[in-house]
């Protein structure tokens, strides 16, 4: 798989990173080398997937109200808030 500069910038945009020209120059050949190495797993025959090292069955708890994070605690690490809400950047 050829990693082009356009693909690198598209990936960066998807994960909300703005790469400097120096970072682009540094990362491009490194990512190419690493991804080519990753492609080694194509040699393995198809089989079932293992999401966890041991199979884990869904764990449900009873649907009852239980204590959770209070509004006060949820805001303890928030620097910018307004009337009990977190103030975020504009969405439009």
């Amino acid at each position: 798989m050829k990693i082009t500069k356009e693909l690198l910038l598209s990936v960066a945009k998807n994960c909300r990173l703005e790469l400097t020209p120096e970072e682009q120059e540094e990362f491009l050949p490194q990512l190419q080398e690493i991804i080519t190495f990753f492609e080694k797993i194509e040699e393995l025959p198809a089989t079932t997937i293992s999401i966890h090292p041991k199979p884990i069955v869904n764990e449900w708890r009873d649907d009852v109200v239980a204590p959770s994070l209070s509004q006060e605690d949820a805001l303890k690490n928030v620097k910018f808030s307004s009337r009990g809400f977190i103030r975020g950047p504009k969405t439009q």
Partner: protein
Amino acid sequence: MTPHKTPTIREHIEALRNKSTTPEETIASFTEEAKTISKRYHYITTFCNETTTKGILTGLPVTVKDCLCVRGVETKASSAILEGYKPVFNATSVQRVLDKGATITGKTAQDEFGYGGFAVNTGIGFEIPTNPHDESRVCGGSSGGSAGITSATTKPHFSIAESTGGSIVTPASYCGVVGLCPTYGRVSRYGLLDYANSLDKIGPITKTVEDAAFALEILSGRDEKDPTSSHENVPSYTKALGKSVKGMRIGIIAPEGTDESILNNVHDTKELLEELGATTTTIELPLTDSYAIPTYYLLALTETSTNLAKYCGLRYGYQEVPTDSYNEYFTHIRSTRFGKEAKRRLLLGTFARMAGYRNAYYMKALQARTHILNEYAQTFGKVDCILSPTMPILAPTFNELSKITPLQNYLMDKLTVGPNLAGLPHMTLPTGWKGSLPIGLMLTAHHFQEEKLITLAHAIERALP
């Protein structure tokens, strides 16, 4: 720094019982010494003094890797993006030692979010910890601060560390101490700043095998707050100490390309085990050997790229006045606060799960993990434990490390990623020296067979000169 005798947890408990020291004295003397050590070696990022109750661990100083939440204590996983974050709850592993009376005395240095095997990828503005036996060399990562302070202190202590691909055993081997990474799910991950959810494990770094057994017994157990924590019964790990290894079947792995002094140490340890009555046989894990590194990195980086999505300058950590559009704000915060290795891994992980690439990379890696799990399952039908080097090389100098590419750096994890990918318990202990540098060997067992590791490691530890 020369190796020294440190009181074990059991000796600390006896000292308190005999009233030869007080809890206040042990905590104060540890903290004073740790501050001096840390000023030089940079093992502890934040000092604290958190205790909630009395119990068997009263007066015992415990340090905690910076990726684990301690209520009210700045917790950053060595990342500038989490600057100022003070959790409002304790990680379950932290709560368990607090419930036994221990005092949390500090947060330990690590690679940013655990991204490295040498503790040189600390985040922007963080010091790099150095090896306690040779300051020109790395202390190993990512739990480098935990291993370093455990090695350097002369006081009773243990550290709660975390491993995704080898981050407990690698630094423990480079610092000449014991590291025990349990089975996936053995210890609750609640309150951990995740690296990769299907790979993260929490375990102790200690001075002795006895301390490791003691600490694991406290840390282990089912936790409703972590649905991936196991219902499996927690045995008394300390009862596995002092048992005979007669008849145990040990598979030996001594890979080509490993430093000669380490291979000689594997050979000497193999002979030691035979003298103790174990049977040894050379084994190979061809699939793990060839495919564990690409499989591990694809899964770890894919998972971590989703975990990093929550760090965007809102709710906690570093924040600026949110005036721009959300995309510009999030991009600005992430681009200026994530370190270089975090960006590299974020890019790789995002790529591997993007539409058009997901099946060829991420989904294929999930299949590769099945092949590797099957290979280990077959192997553990023939042997009880695997003995191998922990790392293929002795602790490198910072200069040596600066000359290798990121891929060459990832390849150094050759021996540790297999057990981590398969969620198998593994343990390193110091088994020799080359000059001033410790050599660590690794024991690996099948799922939930930590007792075998402890029995074997304790027998080796006691038999060594």
